[in-house]
């Protein structure tokens, strides 16, 4: 009853492993929470609608000449994407520890697997919500489509590098994800989700612009709307941070590579 184990190149082994992990992880998500994919879509949608309704009740149905719902969604989506993806990735390695007893599975494989799932989910949700808004009669064709795509890809890149750093911290301190979500919560209020920087007195800008998440919302709206131009959104700044977190994450991964395997 021997099944021949073919000799494969390292790249083939990795491809087979990641696809096996993909099948496994997708199944466990579908299996445990049947509404999981519904909520992934409904949560940012509902969040945006609640804020939009509040603004409408307050008598504002446009911000900077843009409909509130679309305005909020362009802030909520990259912010939630960033926090969700980085927290999911932080536990990717640790929660698959049992599988490292197979030599084919190295710690980076479950990380890559989860990154693929999270990035795909984000892009699908983004597109679906835009399509829904389009049907509802909103003007959702971006002014600079390439820049909107680029800023979202850059967000994914930074979130995953940051997630890799967190995945390293998790093996030293198990409660890292809790602390991280405590830090993420106040960021919700300073990342430009329900304001743009031009509504803030300019002498506060130098503090707010340290937060890279603000740049994602600012640049997203800059790319989307004809009548908004961000005075602070800085591609260079967030690119440097992205390179920084990836460099740190990879260095930590290399240092800790034995620790991931240890039971």
């Amino acid at each position, binding site marked *: 009853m021997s099944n021949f184990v073919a000799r494969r190149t390292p790249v083939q082994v990795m491809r*087979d492993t990641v696809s096996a992990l993909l099948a496994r992880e997708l199944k466990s998500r579908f299996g445990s929470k049947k509404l999981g994919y519904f909520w992934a879509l409904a949560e940012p949608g509902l969040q945006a609608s609640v804020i939009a309704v509040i603004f409408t009740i307050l008598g504002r149905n446009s911000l900077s000449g843009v409909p509130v719902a679309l305005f909020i969604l362009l802030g909520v989506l990259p912010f939630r994407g960033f926090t969700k993806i980085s927290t999911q990735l932080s536990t990717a390695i640790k929660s698959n520890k049992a599988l490292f*007893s197979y030599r084919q599975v190295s710690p980076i494989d479950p990380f890559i697997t989860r990154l693929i799932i999270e990035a795909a989910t984000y892009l699908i949700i983004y597109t679906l919500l835009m399509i829904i808004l389009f049907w509802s009669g909103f003007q959702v064709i971006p002014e600079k489509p390439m820049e909107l795509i680029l800023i979202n890809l850059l967000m994914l890149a930074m979130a995953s590098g940051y997630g890799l750093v967190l995945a390293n911290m998790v093996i030293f301190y198990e409660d890292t994800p809790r602390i991280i979500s405590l830090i993420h919560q106040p960021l919700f209020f300073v990342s430009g989700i329900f304001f743009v920087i031009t509504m803030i007195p300019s002498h506060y800008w130098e503090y707010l612009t340290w937060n890279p998440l603000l740049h994602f919302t600012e640049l997203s709206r800059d790319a989307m709307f004809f009548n908004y131009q961000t005075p602070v959104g800085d591609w260079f700044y967030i690119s440097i941070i992205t390179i920084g977190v990836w460099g740190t994450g990879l260095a930590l991964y290399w240092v800790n590579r034995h620790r991931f395997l240890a*039971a």
Partner: protein
Amino acid sequence: MIHFRNVSKFYPTRNGRTYIFKDINFKLPMARSIGVLGPNGAGKSTLVRMIGGADTPSRGHIDSDLRISWPLGLQGGLQGSMSGRENVRFVARINGISNTSIIEQEVANFADIGRYYDEPIRTYSNGMRSRVAFGLSLAFDFDVLLIDEVTSVGDATFRKKSQQALQRIRETTHVIMVSHEMKQLQEFCEAGIVIKNQNFVFHSCIKNAIQDYQETYVKL
């Protein structure tokens, strides 16, 4: 042949590094099955895990051209939240087999645990776990099978079945086996290694290995 090049393994403890193995240089011949002997905590499981790639040496390398199984132990390997079948499917896939239904059936036949095969592993008893783990490793044509105490928990039927299976594949597959039962080691292995002094001693006859082990460690 399994080639140990300058292999050291240590664990950081409060009193500095505790070495399990230090600077091992050895070519372990795999022409026969090998029993691993040593007291608790000597590093038997660590050695087997390193050979199987489930753990890495702190320094040095272990190289081999042979197809070596993962270490079949009581813990690890099988994922508790997945069913036996899903575990089998997963392992088949990471080994590059895309049509997994044949292998799923083979393991089901060997394990013979009925409807539990589709229940999560965490609901299994130790014996049932071992049946799946052992059946799974037999489904591949490994040159070397790493067995860490996995056969010792089974009932009489399972022991007999695994013994027969090992006899059947004897020509092509050899085992490296950790066990505290000398009878079992003599049954399955021809050669032996004894772990001592942060190194190991190879004996081409299991009887000598057992004698060495008893002289070194068993003091009554």
